[in-house]
């Protein structure tokens, strides 16, 4: 039994030795380097581009502007360099192409762009009159007005959070090579199959003419889900110039052309009975939209799915601004969930009910919006397991009750919840004549452990040792499979991998029992046991190795299977301890415990790492991460890693991850559900709730930076 065990990453060795080749690590003969020139206004027109100086740089092959760039359309995005309109600051306005990276970079500095600028608007506060409700963004269940009227206690509060940028450590990179009308792309993508389609559409060539590879991805978090226009432009340049082309984004460029989490304002109104049961939940939010797209990516799903409440109203408003289009970012629920879980904490103090108890009283087995029963749900167990491990029962509920030296100590908690995606996927498993096993599927391992988990799944289905199995991913030559987004990889693809491996097992068992030369000849196939690379008779008195069966057969046994899977809802409870130094308004998270119902756990080691990663994102969102937009120029003021702060090693305490580990019966992924995004969702609220418990001060605007907390601590 290997599924569920804490198996070490099978791609670990490649990653710790530097042998793993990521997209930017590809270098091809004759390859050219492309570098982007970014616009410096947010709204208006380009009136002229002077490329004379740039073209004079030795090694420069071509400079593309909107006047001479290849003509392209994108399935899903505004395509720059097709006209002179500017829709956001940091839009691509030119591309330099040269023999070396340094030459391309130098040339990019020398491109002179003249604009006819108009006054932009970047933040919600500057466009309140333009807030509107896009189509299909309102859900009403029951009678919210009546629910509020029936409430004995009401909490009504506003919360807000800033734009965020994904900032994977690996910048976006794309290396394109043409052979006639066939294109090969090494792309930093969370979905090679999607990418293949996007490239094929852009160049009007058959999908089968495009091969996309991404065997290793240095993090995605949502900003590598789509193929962005710069990758299409790079491929178009490679085609036009007849040479392979490479483009790697500078870190600063990742703050305008590969999306962000939108600025988010929200108002929560909770109505409750004195015992804490909710009578109404009204959630009105507003988020930034771009001029070129109405798509929204921060949804109030938790308000619609998490708690028993007969009367629910969610209204997701937007406002069109001169900013890039936002996108899903690791746990798109985070922003709205922060409001909900903070409002519940506020309600718990209004009622004098313990925050965990308040959530227990509003627990539901049924999706309150659809009335459907959840396939399995162990959230109550999560509250118990998490609270016990944390020592929650020792908490003095009074804010400001615990001091240690200069510091206030506070404990807070929140529910965590994320509904993961699922899509149909195929996978191939082949046992070679020497008994070794290869599995191929065109999904990805973006750091989550896909290679390792599928190795476990195949090994277990066949009954062979892990080292007899090799898994290959993220190549469009393999059977099509899911995008690695929405925590959907394991949930979407495991079923197909398992089915293919099981089919191979059945076929090999059949080969053995039907062949007089096998010691298992004549036994009923369904009674054969497979383990450790052997086929056994039911009483284990007879056996034959896979290797022997395959050697006799002399040719590979292969199966390709396809499976669909249901979406699922993974929940949990997170508990944190903070220490607040009131002299500086400084907050440190000193302890964290999370307990989760994510269905069956496939690999305890990688699942724990996902939890730690998610929790740490929560710390970042709570305490430091925010993209600052200059309201005058609509430009990101902090497009770098020294002023867009991420949590560093010293910010992260010991974190404990607990799993209920019960299979979800509707999952075809051996009972597993998606999990990677769940453990972020509640952390910002839990930290804010802990700060309130420590100090009696409530901050409703993320992040909880020192200036905000000091202001609160110094007033009254």
């Amino acid at each position: 039994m290997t599924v569920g065990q804490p198996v070490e990453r099978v791609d670990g060795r490649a990653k710790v030795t530097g042998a793993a080749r990521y997209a930017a690590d590809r270098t091809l003969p004759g390859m050219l380097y492309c570098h982007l020139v970014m616009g410096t206004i947010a709204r208006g027109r380009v009136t002229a581009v002077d490329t004379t100086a740039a073209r004079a740089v030795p090694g420069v092959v071509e400079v593309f502007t909107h006047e001479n760039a290849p003509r392209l359309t994108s399935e899903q995005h505004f395509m720059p360099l097709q006209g002179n309109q500017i829709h956001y600051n940091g839009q691509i306005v030119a591309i330099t192409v040269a023999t070396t990276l340094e030459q391309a970079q130098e040339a990019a500095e020398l491109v002179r762009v003249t604009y006819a600028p108009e006054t932009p608007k970047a933040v919600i506060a500057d466009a309140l009159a333009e807030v509107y409700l896009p189509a299909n963004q309102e859900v009403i269940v029951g009678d919210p007005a009546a629910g509020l009227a029936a409430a004995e206690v009401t909490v009504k509060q506003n919360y807000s959070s800033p734009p965020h940028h994904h900032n994977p450590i690996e910048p976006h990179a794309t290396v394109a090579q043409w052979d006639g009308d066939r294109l090969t792309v090494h792309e930093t993508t969370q979905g090679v199959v999607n990418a293949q389609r996007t490239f094929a559409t852009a160049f009007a060539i058959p999908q089968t003419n495009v091969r996309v590879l991404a065997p290793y991805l240095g993090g995605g978090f949502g900003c590598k889900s789509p193929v962005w226009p710069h990758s299409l432009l790079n491929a178009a340049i490679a085609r036009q110039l007849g040479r392979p082309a490479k483009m790697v984004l500078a870190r600063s460029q990742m703050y305008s052309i590969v999306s962000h989490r939108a600025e988010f304002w929200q108002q929560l109104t909770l109505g409750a009975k004195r015992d804490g049961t909710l009578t109404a939940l009204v959630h009105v939010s507003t988020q930034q939209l771009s001029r070129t797209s109405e798509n929204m990516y921060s949804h109030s799903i938790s308000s619609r799915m998490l708690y028993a409440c007969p009367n629910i109203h969610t209204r997701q408003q937007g406002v069109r601004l001169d900013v890039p289009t936002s996108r899903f970012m690791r746990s798109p629920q985070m922003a709205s969930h922060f409001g909900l879980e903070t409002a519940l904490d506020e309600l718990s103090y209004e009622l004098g009910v313990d925050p965990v108890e308040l959530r227990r009283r509003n627990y539901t087995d049924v999706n309150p919006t659809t009335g459907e029963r959840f396939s399995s749900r162990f959230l109550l167990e999560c509250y118990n397991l998490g609270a016990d491990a944390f020592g929650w029962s020792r908490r003095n509920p009074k804010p400001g009750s615990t001091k240690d030296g200069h510091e206030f100590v506070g404990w807070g908690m929140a529910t965590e919840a994320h509904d993961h995606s699922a899509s149909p996927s195929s996978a191939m498993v082949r046992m070679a004549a020497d008994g070794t096993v290869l599995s191929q599927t065109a999904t990805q391992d973006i750091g989550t452990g896909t290679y390792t988990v599928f190795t476990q799944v195949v090994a277990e289905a066949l009954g062979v040792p892990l080292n007899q199995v090799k898994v290959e991913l993220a190549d469009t030559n393999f059977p099509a499979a899911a995008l690695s987004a929405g925590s959907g990889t394991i949930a979407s693809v495991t079923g197909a991998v398992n089915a293919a491996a099981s089919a191979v097992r059945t076929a090999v068992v059949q080969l053995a029992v039907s062949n007089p030369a096998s010691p298992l000849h004549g036994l009923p196939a369904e009674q054969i046991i497979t383990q450790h690379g052997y086929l056994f008779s039911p009483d284990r008195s007879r056996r034959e190795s896979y290797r022997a069966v395959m050697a006799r057969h002399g040719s590979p046994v292969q199966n390709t299977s396809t499976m669909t899977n249901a979406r699922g809802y993974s929940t949990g409870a997170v508990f944190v301890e903070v220490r607040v130094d009131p002299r500086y308004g400084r907050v440190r998270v000193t302890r964290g415990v999370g307990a989760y119902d994510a269905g069956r756990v496939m690999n305890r080691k990688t699942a724990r790492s996902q939890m730690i990663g998610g929790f740490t994102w929560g710390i970042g969102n709570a305490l430091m991460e925010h993209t600052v937009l200059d309201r005058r120029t609509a430009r990101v003021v902090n497009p770098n890693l020294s002023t867009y702060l991420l949590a560093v090693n010293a910010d992260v305490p010991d974190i404990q991850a607990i799993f209920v580990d019960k299979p979800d019966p509707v999952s075809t992924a051996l009972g597993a559900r998606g999990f990677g995004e769940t453990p972020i969702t509640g952390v910002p609220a839990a930290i804010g709730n802990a700060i309130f418990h420590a100090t009696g001060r409530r901050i409703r605007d993320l992040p909880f930076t020192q200036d905000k907390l000091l202001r609160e601590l110094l007033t009254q």
Partner: protein
Amino acid sequence: MTADSEFKRRTVLKAGSTAVTATFVATRTATPAAAAQTESSVDITLRVNGHDHRLAVEPRVTLLDALRERLDLTGTKKGCDRGECGACTVLADGRRIKSCLTLAVMRQNTEITTIEGLARGDRLHPLQEAFIRRDALQCGGCTPGQIMSGVACISEGHTRSADEIREWMSGNLCRCACYPNIVAAIQDAAK
């Protein structure tokens, strides 16, 4: 020739050059950028992982870009190109430095160690082993930098407590946030 077969050919060349210490010709044309010389190029010798590499680079070429784009030593990663993330950390005469913040021409006569030079043949460095055992990596984008930084952290003696390791490893960002596991791995290897 497909991208992959070309890649394999180069890997073979590189493997060959490590077996024989000074196959200059092979390393010199490892990539097209290495072949591209301009008037301002200067001939330098970089000593990386115990092997001398002669190459012609413009003075503005960073050590990081020389390693990655000229010598095809792509284990060292570029996360920011301005000293903020630590992904490009290598050892220079045993000290950890950010290879994006130094020029290749300044690093002649320096013993440079990159992630590719840490293992002894098939035998991983104890910190590489500990990273796998402790699951101190996810996507791997920061991992080479973390490991090189961790090796130096250990040799500097900054491992007397978990808090001390946290502090001295905070120049290496990990967006997947493997931090507690990185601390555990360094503690293991420091023993």
